[in-house]
């Protein structure tokens, strides 16, 4: 069983009238890449800020490497690298000077680690360019360099591919995969660019309005995002009853008054359509669809599902 290296127990955070986090329970196991998925304002950054000590919980507690005391968390944070929101550096210093500042502050011996960190993120050739002159992508990469400099065991990354161009996104993704596979770095990555997460993570947590509404592994998610027949009728509940009575089918989900998803009879849609018509149910369409990660998430949080892309 993989070691639990970061944990939140009954974690809540209240800001005046808003509950930013509501009774969050999760465990980050060593070796995993945990994807924290949620809309803007769902609480992803708040959770990361509490883990890094920038913010304080209202209720519950957190643990890093099994320690939840103040001293234990302080020690644990020295084994973590983090990028929370946009990377912050001194605008009038160069990339090397900024990293050197933090190297000294963190007591990391040997100046080589600065060069190595810059090389890892392809920022070795920035020379005397000040941080204020960096592009967004360069700033993001410098943030990653700082997070990697102390050779962390956990990386906490808050929307790490924000502002990157497609090449930059591929570069960062490949780097993160390499770090996980070669250096066994565990990661907690928050994002709302779901398609990019699907290329990276091994475990998902879906956050909405401060609540962790679902947690599942990549395999479980693949099973849930399976193909289905989308049937649009005038009486979805009646069709659901008929599916159970006439066809013995229980693998379905009524998504609205006029729509139902059926996870069986995928190759025999005519059986479903005939049954509907014969029982006086108005049928407007029937088609095979595949649930995308975005659609799965939108269904989880009750948003509008994008039906145009994947219809077959």
């Amino acid at each position, binding site marked *: 069983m993989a070691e639990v290296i970061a944990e939140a127990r009954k974690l809540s955070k209240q800001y005046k009238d808003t509950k930013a986090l509501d009774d969050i329970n999760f465990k980050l196991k060593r070796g995993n890449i945990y994807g924290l998925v949620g809309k803007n304002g769902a609480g992803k950054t708040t959770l990361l*800020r509490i883990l890094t*000590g*920038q913010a304080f919980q209202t209720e519950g507690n957190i643990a890093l490497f099994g320690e939840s005391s103040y001293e234990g968390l302080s020690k644990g*944070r020295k084994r973590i690298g983090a990028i929370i929101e946009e990377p912050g550096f001194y605008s*009038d210093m160069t990339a090397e000077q900024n990293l050197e500042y933090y190297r000294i*502050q*963190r007591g990391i011996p040997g100046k080589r680690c600065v060069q190595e960190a810059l090389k890892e993120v392809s920022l070795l050739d920035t020379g005397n360019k000040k941080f204020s002159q960096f592009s967004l992508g360069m700033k993001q990469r410098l943030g990653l360099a700082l997070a990697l400099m102390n050779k962390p065991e956990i990386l*906490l990354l808050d929307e790490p591919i924000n502002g990157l161009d497609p090449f930059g996104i591929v570069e960062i993704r490949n780097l993160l995969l390499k770090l996980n596979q070669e250096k066994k770095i565990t990661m907690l990555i928050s994002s709302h660019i779901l398609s990019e997460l699907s290329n990276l993570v091994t475990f998902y947590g879906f956050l909405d309005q401060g609540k962790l509404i679902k947690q599942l592994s990549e395999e479980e998610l693949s099973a849930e995002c399976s193909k289905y027949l989308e049937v649009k009728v005038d009486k979805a509940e009646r069709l659901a009853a008929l599916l159970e009575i006439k066809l013995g089918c229980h693998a379905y989900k009524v998504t609205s008054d006029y729509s139902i998803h059926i996870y069986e009879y995928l190759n025999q849609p005519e059986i479903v359509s005939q049954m509907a018509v014969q029982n006086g149910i108005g049928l407007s369409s029937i088609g095979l669809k595949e649930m995308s990660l975005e659609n799965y998430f939108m269904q989880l949080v009750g948003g509008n599902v994008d039906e145009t892309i994947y219809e077959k």
Partner: protein
Amino acid sequence: MKQYMKSEFYRIAHRMSTYLFIGMCSLLMVSSNVVLAVVKHADAKFPYATTKFSISNLYASFAVVYLLCIAIASMIFGNEYGNRTMKNSISYGISRGTIYFGKLITEMIYAVIAFAAITGIHVASACLLLENSGAESIALLLKTTLFCFPLFIFAVGASNCFIFLFDSMGNAIAATLGLLLALPLVSNMLGMKFEVFHKLAEILPWNLINNMEFDFDKLEIILKWNERTVYYYWMAGIIQMVLVVLAGYLIFNKREIK
């Protein structure tokens, strides 16, 4: 704490403003001596081209030095909130106490170095360019510094406190000026009517600095409130500094960092 302060010294050593501040202040002081020397050259009877006059300008202007402590603190603080850099230290497990007191000590050390450098350059240029009036002026400068040093330290501590508490440097400076300048002036006015404000006014650092007058002939400090000895100045400065620094730390310790 040691590592944090080492990193702070690295940072301020690599910033232009660190040297610019000392350079500009020194230039200002040297230029005043140059002007005196030039005028003396043009008019042989000009009586003020002396080290006594030049140095007296400095110690008689310690109220300006007091206010410059605000500039020093804000400069050394490094715009942590604007740059959003503090989270990098916090997320590595560096405590808020280390950050708060680390910055404070760095600001104080820089303030002492800057003061010594600027004063030294001023006195040296005066000695080089002007008529030497003797060492008594330098002795009075040192004595005045002894009186005012704890008040300068208080000014740095108060500035540090407000800079940590406000996101905006402008608001922090305004709040600091409120404590360092506005409160004493208001206390002075109200002190004319109400005894409690009069008592308060007597212990506030700005008023303590302005309490000092100088007999330029005898080269002596005259204290308007003549029961205020140098020990009183130190007690007032240190106690008020401890109070304001502690209050700032206790509030900052609960502050969430963006």
